[in-house]
């Protein structure tokens, strides 16, 4: 039983795997560096595209870090606010961008500009109908008191066969108004 040669034999696989991992790390670092900026830019431009879809008059926007609210501007006049929320859909999280019109934001005077879906994993052909205009346009210019499915006394008609998806979006938007209203009023008093 000589121990030395077997030690050496044992080391070769370890060294080999270490070298492979090192090469893999280098390859991944290079890929990450090459794609990182592109991925971030893509996310930002996707958000800007969604914002300008909600607010066609938008010429500029700023982002308030503390409250995570986008302030939408038209030639330096604030015309509205926007923020993203997440609802629990049938297939996972539904990320929604909510637009609120600039008013004095007192109770009963909160009016939605509209909403758009950032990402979703709903059932294709059923839940994905939340992406269609027939559903989304119902939120345009809607008073915050009316954000509920019509079966619950609101103004939103649920999609046939996709009640869970419809109510996930509606409930998330309605809940977000309650959660964000103080932040919105605060911002509103600062900008005006």
């Amino acid at each position, binding site marked *: 039983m000589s121990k030395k040669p077997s030690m050496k034999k044992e080391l070769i696989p370890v060294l*080999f*795997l270490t070298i492979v991992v090192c090469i893999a790390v280098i390859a991944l670092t290079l*890929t*990450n560096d090459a794609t990182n900026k592109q*991925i971030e830019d893509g996310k930002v431009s996707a958000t800007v595209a969604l914002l300008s879809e909600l607010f066609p008059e938008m010429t500029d926007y700023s982002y308030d870090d503390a409250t995570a609210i986008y302030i939408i501007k038209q030639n330096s006049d604030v015309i509205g606010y926007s923020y993203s929320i997440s609802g629990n859909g049938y297939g996972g999280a539904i990320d929604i961008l909510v637009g609120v019109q600039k008013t004095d934001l007192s109770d009963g005077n909160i009016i939605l500009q509209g909403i758009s879906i950032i990402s979703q994993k709903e059932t*294709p*052909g059923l839940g994905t109908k939340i992406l269609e205009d027939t559903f989304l346009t119902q939120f345009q210019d809607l008073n915050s008191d009316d954000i509920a499915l019509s079966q619950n006394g609101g103004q939103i008609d649920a999609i046939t066969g996709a009640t869970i998806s419809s109510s996930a979006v509606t409930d998330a938007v309605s809940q977000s108004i309650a959660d964000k209203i103080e932040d919105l009023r605060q911002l509103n008093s600062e900008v005006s």
Partner: protein
Amino acid sequence: MAFFKNFNKGILKENPVLVLLLGLCPTLAVSTSLDNALGMTAAVLFVLISANIIVSLIRNFTPEKVRIPVFIVIIATLVTIVDLSMQAFLPDLSESLGMFIPLIVVNCIILGRAEAFASKNSLKDSVADALGMGVGFGVAIFLVSFFRQLLGTGEVSLFGVGLSLPGLSANPMAIFILPYGAFMVLGCLLATMRYLEVRKNG
């Protein structure tokens, strides 16, 4: 000759999905549209070819004991490269394939071919094998996607170009878009494959 033999066997005789029953998870999960099928096939083909090339090149000095971890590291690296590149340059496709790009790491086709073929065969044969298996996977996922999209939404489209069946698109059979529809379509395809095989041999 051997090149084409190795290429051909993946498409029909040893089709990874329809005969070997490997890689069923992405075949069932993302086969809701032809666009998804194309994206998935491209990703799998790239990873499969690169993994087979690398594994075949290092086959003579890969220590037996650590070969599986080495293969996994290589495959995981390649998949991450695909995932990041797709997020950067094809964000929409990346969004719709979602989790199933990272999951290529554990796709049995790739580790299976690295272990069963590329680690024992020359570079040329390994490339042929990867191409054949990749195309075979593509054929299977395209077939499943075609039937699911056609029956489930009433229209078939690739890059937005396609046709729709007027009667069906007004009232599609949404069950085929749902997960169990995938099992039904795949089951029918497997049965058809067996039927053709038995008829040919019998």
